[in-house]
């Protein structure tokens, strides 16, 4: 293998193309790095920090770090996976995630990562934040209880759909997704289920109405095999 366009993850050489990030190159090479706020075709965002790796001794996000020849990346290590579990626990206690009754169960990236990284409990006390459900749209629910503020819907609506329906507002723990209508309601926007923004949510914050449990729980995407073995799907998926 040509060393000019390869780098190393946990001892394995990974080929890369110009302008690829460490995360993109790794996934294409079939090496899984946990992530939530990255989606193929959208600009890397770097906020969930699940893809934190160690490169040449420094912690950094794999999704925003350009791939460079010869760098050595630590990824699947007990220390990093411990940090990732802690991050997942943070997201679980920050929002209100009721997996057993959630329509996204089995298709949810947050849940899939929690299984994959063996997160046995949320560990911390839940924040029990009062989050809103917006059911004003005829075809979709917006359930903020599950939102992890990853910003993918904001990006997809702006960069792909050119509708600019979503935005992140507020600061710190008050950061939240808001809707660009005078009422703040999704129903008053020109959002459609065919939008890219409708399909990129890694959790169940945007869900279609009148389509519940069409595929039984137990037979869904991440029920069949763990997310870490689905790198091909994760790189080729399109909303």
């Amino acid at each position, binding site marked *: 293998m040509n060393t000019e366009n390869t780098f190393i993850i946990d001892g394995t050489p990974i080929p890369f193309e110009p302008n690829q990030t460490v995360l993109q190159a790794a996934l294409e090479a079939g090496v899984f790095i946990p992530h939530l706020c990255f989606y193929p075709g959208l600009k*890397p965002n*770097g*906020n*969930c*920090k*699940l893809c*934190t790796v160690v490169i040449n001794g420094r*912690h950094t*996000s794999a999704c*925003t770090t*350009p791939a460079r020849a010869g760098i050595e990346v630590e990824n699947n290590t007990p220390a990093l996976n411990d*940090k990732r579990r*802690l*991050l997942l626990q*943070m*997201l679980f*206690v*920050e929002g209100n995630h009721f997996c057993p009754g959630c329509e996204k169960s089995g298709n949810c990236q947050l849940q899939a990562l929690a299984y994959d990284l063996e997160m046995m409990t949320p560990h*911390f*006390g839940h*924040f029990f934040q009062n989050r809103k459900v917006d059911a004003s749209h005829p075809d979709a629910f917006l359930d903020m209880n599950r939102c*992890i*503020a990853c910003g993918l819907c904001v990006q997809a609506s702006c960069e792909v759909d050119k509708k*600019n329906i*979503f*935005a*992140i*507002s*507020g*600061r*710190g*723990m*008050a*950061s939240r997704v*808001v*809707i*660009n*209508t*005078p009422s703040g309601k999704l129903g008053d926007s020109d959002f459609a289920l065919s939008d890219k923004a409708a399909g990129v949510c890694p959790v169940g914050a945007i869900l279609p109405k009148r389509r519940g449990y069409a595929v039984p729980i137990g037979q869904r995407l991440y029920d069949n095999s763990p997310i870490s073995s689905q790198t091909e799907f994760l790189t080729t998926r399109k909303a």
Partner: protein
Amino acid sequence: MSLVNSSAGEVLDPILERYARNPRHLMQILRETQERLDFIPAWAVDYLAKALALARTQVQAVIDFYAFFHDSPHGKYRIRFSDNVTDRMQGNAALLSRMLSRFGLAQGQVSGDGLVSIDTTSCTGMCDQGPALLINNYPIPRLSSQRIDKICELIKGRIPLTEWPAEFFRVEDNIHRRDVLLSTPMVNGQALKRAVELGPQGMLAEMKASNFRGRGGAGFTTAVKWEACKNAPGETRYIVCNADEGEPGTFKDRVLLASFSERVFEGMTIAGYVIGASKGLVYLRAEYRYMLEKLQATLEARRKANLLGKDILGQKGFDFDIEIHMGAGAYVCGEETALIESLEGKPGRPRIRPPFPVTHGYLGRPTVVNNVETLAKATLIAQNGGAWYQGLGTKLSTGTKLLSISGDCDRPGIYEYPFGVRIAKILEDCGARNAMAVQVGGASGTCLAQHEFGRKIAFEDVSTSGALMVFGDNRDMFEISRNFMHFFQHESCGFCTPCRVGTTLMCNTLDKIASGKGTAYEMNELSRLHQLLSTASHCGLGQSASRSVYDTLQKFRPSYDRRLKQKDFEPAFDLDAALAPAREIAERDDTDAHLGADL
């Protein structure tokens, strides 16, 4: 103010015109709107969004992000008590409750008649003359019970701020030690003339020879930054002065801007000359709003003297001007990429780096962001040469450093020392007789215990942006760290998971320990959370947020231990408190309606 008497356009059009309806100036437009209307009502958001061709959410996001913008009424008089640990040591809590009880208000509540609201805010940079408060963003330092009572009277009498005693608003410089920067007389234009004689390359060579490192905290070599920007591809470049001095305990930039602003502006002009920028921007923190008019007058005088504007000093093509941009209450904007976002009229969330500002900064153009002190000192290097400057301080940290000293000492204020000065010497000079600890570099800095007072202020030893808070042997280091942690929780921008959730979890854990429910379990939690925050956070805020907790855990462990229960674990959940709604419904509050205290 309502729409009854005037239309939205009548109020907002003159403000919009002043900023050429440029959405980049959204922060300034919102600030002026609030100064006019006391808050930013929904109709103003709609009108401004339309006039600036922005999405409504873009305007709303800016209002929501910055602590000093309000989209609901917050009273004619909006009071914020500075709540740095130094304000607490000076007794701000008693003064706050005194004022609250005078108005019969709870903290954060707006009075029924819409007259006043009272709350707290992060450090306002008056640590050497606290406790302090801000009223409609103007500072009143040196608070006492008498002064609080007088303020209450003035508010109740609805006296306009312009008619309040000027003495209330007097801010002192308190300079106690002067070295080369503070003692060299300034002749306007002299340093700039010398820079022009040297030419951009020659001036850059002097900067290199001086081995001068940035004074904002990171200590990056200034000449390297200037050169990288100068050589970055592109036609337009910018020089930005970071005057968002939000680090708790730091106030030296306030003094430089109040009494040495000519030097700061001249340093900016020199930097602009070297890198080839024709525009400089000063990002001034909202807490320093009171200086705005004076600074603008100084800029105007410099334009008249041909030290700013077109063909400066008669040099054909040397065009440079400076614009002042006000912040609106966000510590994170001290981070250079967050500051640039804010300059562009957006919420101050730090960008992903690389690219770095020297190649992709303000409006995507090559930009140098320098601290106030850095720019002021560039004038000295122009005047006296890099070789001279290189001879001051230590080999790796040349020159002098301004320190903002506060806390338990007789003479708090500004001290200029050559780098290499020992902590013990500083403590002696400022009259700190019983120091148990010093916090160097503000809340995000290093906590030093007595056995470390022989260490030196220098990039190679104890690095600092300029704050030094002294804690006497009667102070509780646990409570000091808890104050800092709540500060970071309040200032976290919310972008990344570890900082957004982690600062809250740290606060919850410290609060549990403070309430007497902490055990060895919580101590482990603090260390584990610190490991995550310090490594996985997106920017310096999150990376340093838990540093003081970590330091005090190592060095002042007894202040934690004495609060702990001798058990492995104690739940945070309070069963009796959880029954409060049930008692309220039952309209009972007798002993039998409570669970035993020891349950």
